[in-house]
């Protein structure tokens, strides 16, 4: 069984972004980037399925400029068998990404498609659900456990007050949540080997997809900060302040 993993070369989750003073937009050019952590979790899950003999090939696909190859090499080091890069310098929006991935799914015919529940950065959290809808297949969002069978995947998902378990027919899209697994530590030899592996590049124009942006980010700002806490000496003062603020009933 083939598995496809969508990999985003995203802003590193430890980096606090800055806003460009003139454009009012988030500065992305010189920012440290890395594989989106949720995509790393997806890859780990696919590798575990392969180790159990349930998966024959893991294909990682990313969309972006040449820098996205870093995340695809990370995918190789984690255990991907093949890596594809859809090359474009455009900042694509989720709907365009979903359409490009749909074109790759048509070409590769995977039975299981993993995306992260969201990418670090804009935090849109849309692409997996859109891809499933465009493909007309089922989707298991926010997966915390999966169990793969011949013609369906059982997905346990995190919902508002606990967990829910669904069975979704294959082919299916699964979006990975934080607790699906803990990705393994990558060993240096794997990283060295990954550098030698070929990444197939596909020109975005080959896929004949409408990439026109549907919305514009006009401006960005940092949320207002509180001035800092008023330090209280004891519990009595705290209770008095809360009463004053009328938050105690």
């Amino acid at each position, binding site marked *: 069984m083939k598995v496809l993993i969508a990999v985003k070369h995203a802003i590193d989750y430890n980096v*606090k972004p800055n806003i460009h003073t003139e454009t009012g937009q988030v500065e992305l050019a010189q920012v440290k980037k890395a594989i989106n952590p949720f995509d790393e979790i997806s890859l780990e899950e696919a590798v575990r399925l392969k180790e159990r003999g349930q998966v024959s090939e893991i294909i990682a696909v990313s969309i972006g400029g040449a820098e996205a190859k870093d995340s695809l090499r990370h995918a190789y080091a984690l255990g991907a068998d093949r890596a594809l890069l859809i090359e474009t310098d455009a900042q694509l929006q989720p709907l365009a990404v979903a359409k490009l991935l749909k074109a790759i799914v048509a070409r590769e015919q995977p039975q299981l498609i993993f995306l992260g529940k969201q990418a670090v950065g804009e935090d849109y959290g849309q692409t997996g659900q859109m891809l499933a*809808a465009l493909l007309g297949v089922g989707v298991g969002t926010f997966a915390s456990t999966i169990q793969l069978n011949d013609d369906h995947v059982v997905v346990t998902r995190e919902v508002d007050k606990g967990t829910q378990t669904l069975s979704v027919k294959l082919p299916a899209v699964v979006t990975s949540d934080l607790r699906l697994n803990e990705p393994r530590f990558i060993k240096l030899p794997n990283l060295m080997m990954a550098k030698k592996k070929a990444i197939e590049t596909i020109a975005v124009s080959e896929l004949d997809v409408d990439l026109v942006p549907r919305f514009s980010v006009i401006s960005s700002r940092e949320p207002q900060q509180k001035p800092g806490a008023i330090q209280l000496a004891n519990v*009595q003062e705290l209770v008095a302040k809360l009463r004053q603020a009328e938050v105690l009933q």
Partner: protein
Amino acid sequence: MSVLVLAEREGKQLKPSTYQAVTAAAAWQLPIDLLVYGDDVEAVAAEAKQLAGVCRVLTAQAGHLLHPLVEDVQELVLSIAKQYTHILSAHSVLGKSVVPGIAARLDIAPITDVIEIKAPSTYVRPGYAGNILSTIKNHEPVQIITVRATAFRASNRGGDAEIFTIDVPPAREISQWISEQLTHSERPELNSARVVIAGGRSLGEEFNALLDPIAVQLDAAIGATRACVDAGFAANDLQVGQTGTIIAPELYIAVGISGAMQHLAGIKDSKIIVAINHDPDAPIFKHADYGLVADLFTVLPELNSALQQS
């Protein structure tokens, strides 16, 4: 031009987030239809028709909507979507799962996790773990959005909308509900509670023993940090933060929480934040209104008895 709001129910009641979604939808100043669906919608429809600002309640009743599946809700909404210029849902687990697919099928880009609607088609939404607020102009002919419910007040009752029954498309049968393990708690739900008290990993095995009595007195929901959940001291669904529940209560009490970026992303819209921590340099104090530097294991029982006496 009119708005379709997707309601969500829990048993025979509407979820609080539906009340907040209706308030959000009022920003467009257009007629609002509220879609309620389920295996038995009579009670929910009777509640829904009272929401101020709702013109019509559309009810969709079918056995397969008992545990609504993403694909079936999408088919249902798509069956009436052509009548609407605006579609809105709360950014709940169900809303997040369903809405992007509806939008994709209509070839429309959705705007998700909106905290402010500037009618007709400009939105404010957080990104970068809540560190950035972006203003987005949407160019689409149909506005499809999900809203962060806690950013909007709940709509009042007092309306008297008409109820219309709509046909339900057949089940897609590409996925199947198997089971649910829901935690039954006496506490209010995290994302709608007026008061939330949350603990960090340092509470350890005493997490519940220390927080429960205070939560009961304050009628508060209980939350936890990711580290606390990962260490097994609190259940997964108690996690507050970017990857857990995002909250905006009137009062948030952070106990033994240092204030990691991803946790702050989930609490920063709380009206009053109280931080109790033994470390005076904990970053949480920069984001709190009131701070108390103290040992948790002595101060929490003290707080409990102080509340009892008052």
